[in-house]
């Protein structure tokens, strides 16, 4: 996902067009063309509303689109976003590349001048693909120290590196700062605050808890963070539902959730994901803190 300087982006896409697999330089998303059978690398100079809708099938192999029959359109994509605001949640798993204004202009003439070199690289890259296709398919490369989408991107990039542990290892460095940024973002969001409140309640060994009590603790945590926002039980319920914690009517006091072993385990897992501070040390004696 490219952002930043537009001339630089066009230049960069042109260069990528020389050394990626079945590259197509496109001015729009164009999945309706029959070129899908080539499994092209789409290098798109202009984002539009169609890209939003197509992010999932482009990004995840196996998810087809229905256009003149079912079609698989997945493949590598580099997209210059420019000023267009993409809304898809699938954007999270993208690799972001801010295009610096200092890039040298890579022209069609440069492309021609380098034709021999480009052909050599294409031939070597093809042999690399053919020789390593099976190894990439079964690769279980992972960087457990990264989290969320940074870890997914690291897996994708690292799995494509065969027999070069040095190159593979450097994938983690590339994604380190992105990971730190998203950890901070996650831990300061409302989801994180609600999970932190639920961790507190788990540690109090409460058998069940009303939404109003979760809201009360969450609001206290928000005040600690100097936020003026006050969460209402209904909002708490909606956020909890999104995370797989579904409330029910507990008693005459209203709705809430039971904190059974299964729920507490999930709350702890979510707590780790959101970087809840109290889970870094953990509570001595809590089986979920120990298992985490």
């Amino acid at each position, binding site marked *: *996902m490219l952002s930043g300087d537009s001339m630089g982006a066009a*230049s*960069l896409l042109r*260069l*990528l*067009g020389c*050394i*990626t*697999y*079945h*590259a*197509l*330089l496109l001015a729009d998303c164009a999945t309706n*063309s*029959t*070129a899908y*059978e*080539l*499994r092209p*690398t789409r290098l798109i100079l202009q984002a539009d509303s169609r890209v939003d809708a197509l*992010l999932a099938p482009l*990004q*995840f*192999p196996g998810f087809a689109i229905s256009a003149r029959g079912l079609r698989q359109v*997945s*493949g*590598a*994509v580099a*997209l210059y976003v420019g000023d267009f605001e993409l809304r898809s949640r699938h954007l999270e798993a993208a*690799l972001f*590349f801010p295009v*610096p204004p200092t*890039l*040298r202009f*890579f022209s069609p003439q*440069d492309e021609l001048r*380098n034709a021999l070199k*480009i*052909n*050599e*690289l*294409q*031939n*070597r*890259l*093809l*042999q*690399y*693909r*053919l*020789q390593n296709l099976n190894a*990439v398919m079964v690769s279980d490369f992972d960087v457990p120290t990264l989290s969320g989408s940074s870890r997914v991107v690291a897996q*994708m*990039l690292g799995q*494509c*590196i065969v027999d*070069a542990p040095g*190159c593979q290892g450097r*994938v983690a460095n*590339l994604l380190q700062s992105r990971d730190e940024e998203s950890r901070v973002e996650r831990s300061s969001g409302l989801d994180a605050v609600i999970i932190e409140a639920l961790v507190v309640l788990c540690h109090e060994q409460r058998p069940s808890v009303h939404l109003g009590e979760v809201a009360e603790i969450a609001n206290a945590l928000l005040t600690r963070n100097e936020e003026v926002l006050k969460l209402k039980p209904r909002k708490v319920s909606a956020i909890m539902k999104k995370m797989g914690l579904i409330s029910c009517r507990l008693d005459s006091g209203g709705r809430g959730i039971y904190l059974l072993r299964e729920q507490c385990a999930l709350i702890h897992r979510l707590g780790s994901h959101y970087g809840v501070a109290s889970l870094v040390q953990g509570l001595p004696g809590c089986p979920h803190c120990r298992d985490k």
Partner: protein
Amino acid sequence: MKRDRDLRDLVKLYSDEMKPVPTGGKKLPDGSVLEVVRNDVTSKVELLHWEDGESAISAEFFCGGKRYVPSHEAVHLKWLPSGASSYLSTRDLFEELQAFIVLGLNASSESATQLAHFCLASFFGDVIALF
């Protein structure tokens, strides 16, 4: 009468089987792989068949009773390999990609590393998710 009909059925079956199947590259049921390449003398798009580390190039390939030919759409691809050639080691190939990017764009080494990863990964777009 019946013999004529049988013969007609047989001819139809044969011509169906021999109908060209356009492909932009495919892993075949026997584990071998087809890829589209461009002949560097004639500029024609052809198929490269890869099996057990050996490659052969031809205008068409027969496998499992099917006749594979290059997809017509492949003519739209500006850059195609003309064959498969040794990359020495993954590290060598990776460094070569980085050098090409640095030279072409005057990019920083960190940017070149990131882009080289993307290029390499694009060759596996059918087996991994990449965006």
